[in-house]
Structure formats: structure tokens, C-alpha cells
């Protein structure tokens, strides 16, 4: 194969779409390594501390698109202290120096400062796409810098970030010459925006297809925007608060009717049920609907809306939809692929909740379902077994029974058999989250059957070290394992230390591992960073030199070629 000229090899590599395949071919021989690295346009770094940014730049000088993830997943639930790390600046600095052709940057769970955004905005003349998911550390001033300096910006996508509001002027920083926007999502911003600036921006960007407004955008503005951009495909509606009898409402409904391309709706922050009919005209074309931030839409109104959405593929709702509502989804949305049902405390007295019944109905009505996130009050083994039979195509199955450690309410048994059925039936399962009462048995099943499993989340489960060992021994493709409040100790941790080099990371909190176990692991595996996170509190129970027998509250282990990180705060000990 090395007799082929390099251009041909490079051309062949163009057909390799996944990172994994490109990584693989780069290990075949030196020639291929060279061709691959010079022609690589897109790099994905699953853990920002696994490799130094400079090294990425040196190896792949032609990169156009970079994705980096920072904090461990459990940071989403406040289990990782605030200043643990995950800074974007070193990445932006390294690329600014060595790879100024960068066009796209996607960051998840990272700390992004205004300074980083300014540097980003000024350093990459061809910069087109910025996606920030669950990030923090920046304000609207940083956004202003992006708007001002990124001349050919196509996408600015802010998903669920904590952004400090420093005023609405950032939006006005898009120059009049900016006409390239295709996607703008600022739904997570809490502050006001300048309505006029927004409307003008939308009007001068003929290619805009995704627009997600924040809560501050009024219905009046929304109406005007729809009138100017009837070719929108994905819309976040803003607050959607209005008097349903007023002129504004009728205008809005009219404008919605003109949006023939609209496929996805979200927002509805303050929507009252009487305003929903405004969107009825476009419901039958919808493939995506997110009502999970609209607690006022429930019961009959919600059901009425859903009955119109025959082509729905992705649905996010609150649990006040109830089992009855889910039955309606099951009978209406035959194309459903992804369902997320979130818990709500705010639905008010006497509202429905969801149980295993709702999910069973969905499974029998929606055979294409492959991705699930389901918060419920109870689940039974019988239901899970039925669901497993009805829906063998799950790739992501996340079940959260709200009461930790709750057994099957009918039989009072653990849910081992139910989850066992899921992993046995769903051969393509890549992601699984467990809940309810579970013994070591469920892990035996997971180790035996879940061959494709890449990510497993465990909470309040298992009886002994054996549970964790079953998983580590069985799941060949495991990449991310996160465990909390489960009785796994040093024996399980040290059972197969080499395994962790085949994985991206392991998180364990409130388990039974000790400092000695962590130190042993660190000593045996120099290419792992073993981080012990010790949050100090007022009484300072934690002495400066705790004994090795001391139980470790939080540990994060990840493979790395970068060595121990130099930006760890004091409460993080890299052993």
C-alpha cells in the first residue's frame, strides 16, 4: 500500500468519516501516519486533560474543526466543585499560535472566560462555528467580541450555559455587513436583548435556519421575526406569553402558517395553554418538540397539541404529561425515536406523574424508539421486560427512578431482572443509566450482555466489589464509567488496573475506596491521572496528611499522555 502516491492515500482517507477510523489508520505505518495527520480536518478531544493542546496543534496543523470536553459528566449535578478546572483558554491560545485556520470550535462543560472569547474572535479570520454546551465563566461581553470580530460567523449556538448578563448590546455588535448567520441560539441568556437589533439581524441573514430566542423576547418580536424569516427550520419561541384574544396572537398564528419549513420547536417558557393554538398550523410537520421548560402546558391542552404531531421523532416533556399523555404519544407519534421525560416540582397540585405504565405504552406504540431519558416514580421488572421486548433498538437507555434504591413496588424485588432484560435485548446499547434497587446481579448481566456499552452511570446500586468487577471484566467497549453512592472498594478498583487505559475515565464518589487504593492505582499506572477531590469544610475534618485508610469521597481517574495537570486547584490531589 505504500506504493500509492500520497495524494491517493489521502483521498482514500477522505472517505473515513469517524475519528476512530482515522485514528486506526494512522497507526498502520509511518507514511500513513504522516498522510493522515496532515490531512486531518477535524479533531475530537473527549477529555481536555488527556493531551496537551500544543501537541494536538503540532500533530494536526491543518485542523479546521475542534471539539473539546472538560469536566466529568457528574459536574452537571453539582458533584464536582466549582473551580475544578476544564479551562478553554489554553486550547484557544495554542490554536491561535499554531493553527490560525481554525473554523469551528465546540466546547462542552468547560470554563470559558471573556478573555478566551476575545482571543478566539481575533485570532481566526475564517472562524465560522462556535458551540458552547454547559459551559460557564463568560458574560455577554465575550459574546459581543465574537459578534464584532467574526466576519464570516455561521453558527453561534449556546446551549444551557451559565452566562453573566452585562446588557443587551452584544447583539447589536453584529455589523451590518454580517449576513452569514445560519444558526443563532441564545435561549440560555437571562437578560434582555434589543428587539430592533434582533429583527434587523434576522432580516439581513437570508440563510438563517435555526433561531432559538431567550425568555426576554416578546411575542411581538417573535411575530415580526417569523414574518421576515419564514424559511426557519428550528425555532425557540422565547417566552410565548400573550393574551390569546389580542391582535398579536392572531398575527402570530398567521405568521406561523407561513413557516412551511419549520421542523423543530422549543422554548414556550411562560406559555399559557390558551396560546398554543397559534402553533397548530405547523404541528403536522414537526419532527422535534421540546416542552420541557413549559410547566403550564399540561393535561388536555398538551394532549391536544401532541395529537397533531404525527411526524414527531424527538419529544422532550415534563412528567406532568402523565401516563395518559404518554399513551396519546404512543398512539400518535409512530415515528418517535427519542423521548425525554423530565421531573417537575412546579406543575402544581394534583398533576399527573409518570410510572412504568407510560413507558410500556410508549414502547408498544413507538417501535423506532432508540433513545430514552425517563424520570419516573416507580418501575417494575415486568414493565422493563416488556419494554425490552418491544424496543430492541435502544442505543441510549437512561432510567431514573426518583426515589433512590426503590424496589419493584409490585414484587418488592430489586430491578436486576428488568435491566438484565434490557441489556440482553438491546444489542446496540451504548449508554445506560441505572436506578432503583439493584444488587450485584444486574452487573453480572451487564458484563455478560452489554457488549457495545460505552457509558454506564451507577447510583445507589450493588452489594459488593463483585458488582463493579463484573462490569470491568465484561464490557469490552466501556469508555466512561461513573459511580456514586455504591459499595465498591479498593478490591474492585484494583482488580484490573490496565482496563482504565482502555477507557476515557472513571468517576467514583461516595463509594468505599480508600486513599491507599487510589495511591496504589496511581503507582501502578503512570499514564493515568488519579485525582482525589477533597473539599475542605469549616471544621477541617481533613488533616493535611490523612491516613491511607481514609475513605476517599471523590475520585476521578483518566488516561492521559499529558501527565499531571498544572492547573489543579488545592483541593484536587493528583496522586
Amino acid at each position: 500500500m505504500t506504493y500509492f502516491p500520497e495524494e491517493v492515500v489521502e483521498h482514500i482517507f477522505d472517505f473515513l468519516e469517524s475519528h476512530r477510523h482515522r485514528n486506526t489508520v494512522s497507526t498502520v505505518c509511518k507514511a500513513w501516519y504522516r498522510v493522515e495527520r496532515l490531512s486531518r480536518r477535524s479533531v475530537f478531544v473527549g477529555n481536555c486533560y488527556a493531551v496537551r493542546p500544543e501537541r494536538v496543534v503540532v500533530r494536526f496543523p491543518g485542523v479546521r474543526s475542534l471539539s473539546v470536553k472538560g469536566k466529568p459528566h457528574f459536574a452537571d449535578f453539582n458533584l464536582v466543585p466549582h473551580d475544578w478546572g476544564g479551562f478553554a483558554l489554553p486550547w484557544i491560545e495554542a490554536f491561535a499560535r499554531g493553527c490560525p485556520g481554525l473554523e469551528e470550535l465546540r466546547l462542552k462543560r468547560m470554563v470559558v472566560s471573556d478573555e478566551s472569547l476575545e482571543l478566539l474572535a481575533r485570532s481566526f479570520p475564517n472562524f465560522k462555528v462556535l458551540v458552547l454546551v454547559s459551559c460557564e465563566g463568560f458574560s455577554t461581553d465575550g459574546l459581543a467580541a465574537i459578534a464584532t470580530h467574526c466576519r464570516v460567523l455561521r453558527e453561534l449556538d449556546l446551549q444551557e450555559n451559565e452566562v453573566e448578563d452585562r446588557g443587551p448590546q452584544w447583539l447589536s455588535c453584529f455589523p451590518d455587513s454580517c449576513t452569514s448567520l445560519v444558526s443563532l441560539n441564545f435561549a440560555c441568556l437571562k437578560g434582555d436583548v434589543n428587539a430592533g437589533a434582533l429583527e434587523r439581524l434576522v432580516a439581513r441573514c437570508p440563510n438563517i435556519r435555526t433561531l432559538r430566542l431567550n425568555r426576554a423576547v416578546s411575542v411581538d418580536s417573535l411575530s415580526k421575526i417569523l414574518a421576515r424569516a419564514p424559511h426557519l427550520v428550528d425555532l425557540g419561541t422565547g417566552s410565548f406569553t400573550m393574551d390569546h384574544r389580542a391582535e398579536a396572537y392572531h398575527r402570530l398564528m398567521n405568521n406561523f402558517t407561513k413557516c412551511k419549513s419549520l421542523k423543530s420547536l422549543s422554548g414556550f417558557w411562560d406559555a399559557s395553554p390558551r396560546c398554543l393554538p397559534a402553533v397548530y398550523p405547523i404541528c403536522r410537520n414537526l419532527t422535534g418538540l421540546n416542552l420541557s421548560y413549559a410547566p403550564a402546558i399540561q393535561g388536555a391542552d398538551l394532549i391536544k397539541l401532541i395529537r397533531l404531531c404525527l411526524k414527531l421523532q424527538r419529544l422532550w416533556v415534563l412528567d406532568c404529561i402523565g401516563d395518559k399523555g404518554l399513551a396519546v404519544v404512543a398512539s400518535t407519534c409512530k415515528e418517535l425515536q427519542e423521548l425525554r421525560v423530565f421531573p417537575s416540582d412546579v406543575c402544581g397540585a394534583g398533576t399527573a406523574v409518570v410510572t412504568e405504565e407510560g413507558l410500556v405504552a410508549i414502547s408498544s406504540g413507538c417501535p423506532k424508539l432508540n433513545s430514552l431519558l425517563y424520570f419516573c416514580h416507580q418501575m417494575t421488572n415486568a414493565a422493563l421486560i416488556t419494554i425490552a421486548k418491544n424496543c430492541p433498538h435502544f442505543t441510549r437507555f437512561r432510567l431514573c427512578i426518583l426515589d433512590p434504591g426503590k424496589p419493584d413496588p409490585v414484587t418488592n424485588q430489586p430491578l436486576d431482572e428488568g435491566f438484565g432484560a434490557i441489556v440482553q435485548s438491546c444489542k446496540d446499547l451504548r449508554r445506560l443509566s441505572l436506578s432503583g434497587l439493584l444488587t450485584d446481579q444486574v452487573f453480572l448481566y451487564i458484563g455478560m450482555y452489554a457488549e457495545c456499552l460505552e457509558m454506564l452511570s451507577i447510583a445507589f446500586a450493588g452489594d459488593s466489589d463483585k458488582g463493579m468487577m463484573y462490569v470491568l471484566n465484561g464490557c469490552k467497549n466501556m469508555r466512561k464509567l461513573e459511580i456514586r453512592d455504591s459499595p465498591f472498594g479498593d478490591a474492585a478498583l484494583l482488580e484490573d488496573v490496565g482496563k482504565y487505559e482502555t477507557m476515557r475515565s472513571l468517576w467514583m464518589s461516595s463509594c468505599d475506596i480508600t486513599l491507599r487504593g487510589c495511591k496504589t492505582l496511581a503507582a501502578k499506572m503512570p499514564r493515568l491521572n488519579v485525582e482525589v477531590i477533597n473539599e475542605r469544610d469549616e471544621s477541617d475534618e481533613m488533616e493535611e496528611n490523612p491516613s491511607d485508610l481514609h475513605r476517599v469521597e471523590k475520585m476521578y481517574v483518566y488516561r492521559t499522555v499529558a501527565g499531571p495537570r498544572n492547573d489543579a486547584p488545592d483541593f484536587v490531589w493528583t496522586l
Partner: protein
Amino acid sequence: MEGEATYVSDLDNLKATELRLGLPGTDAPEKPTPASPRGSKRALLAADEECQSKSKSLGADSSGQEAAPVAKAQVVGWPPIRSYRKNSFQARKAEEEAAGLFVKVSMDGAPYLRKIDLKVYEGYKELRKALENLFKCFSLGELSGMEGCNGSEYAITYEDKDGDWMLVGDVPWEMFISSCKRLRIMSGSEARGMRSSP
């Protein structure tokens, strides 16, 4: 469930596995073994805050449902919902709770309107008394609209979230104040017309 111990179906031991809050400095009560501290104090304090906000919402919602087990509110980071989502709901709740529920009150024939805060009243009786006081200078007489008594000259009505005019007193108080946008004390003839329609 504690960080160890097999599940014991024995109801007596259920108490032993129950998560409890304690003030800093007190013993964590009835933990099965002393070798497994339930987590740092910070976790307890954080759980305490969560518990307070949770129990507020539990208090508001629990009238219709079975009382959700309070134990679940004490666990940090549970249920596993992104903080962004949690914060956006809590912020909204806080908004609703902090703002008083001021609604305009108009009375047919009176030259000006009044405003009252519905949150300060415990029920319909208090509301009626307050309205009588507000408008007594216009010689109201007895206000009806509560128990459907005849013969009075006025009826108290309200505009609900959907924009419909309803007679005050039909729904539970909590439901009333969450949907009432304004009040109107309707005069005799109109009021009678309202009540006599089927």
C-alpha cells in the same frame, strides 16, 4: 441507601438506611457503621438548602399527591438533573413566591379601583371581609358571591387566566389565587343575570 450493606427487606432496618439530616456537630443518627461517614459537611449543608427549597415546593404541591418521601430531597445531586434546568425552575418559583399577588378590584359604580394582595388572605371569608372594608364607603351592604346566597345586591367575580369571568368561591382557595387576574364586584342586575343562567 448507604454506601454499603445489602438491601434488607426487614422493615425495621429500613429506618437504619434512611437518610437523615443533622445539624453540624450532632451525631449522624442511626448509621449502620461508624466507618462510613455520609459525606462531608458541605454535602449536608448543600443538601439542607436543597431540602428547604424542595420542601417548599413539596408543601405547595403535595395536597393533590401522596406526600413524596422527604428523604429524597436530602441527597446532593439527586435526581440527576442539570443545574441549568434546576436553576431555571427554582428561579421561576422564587419569582412567583416573592412577588405579591396584587390584583385590581373594580366595583360597578365606584369612581376608582383598588388593588389588593391575594397572598395575605387565608381564604374566601377573609377576602370578602377585606373587600367589604375597601368599598364600604360606597355603601355595599352584604357581599354575596360566596355561598350563593340570594337577595344581596352584589356578586364578586374574577377574571381567570383564560380570560373568562367566574364567580368567586367555586374552586379551592389555592387554585383561585393562582388563576385570578383581577376582581370585579358586579352590581345587582348583572349579577343576577350571571347566576340565573344554567
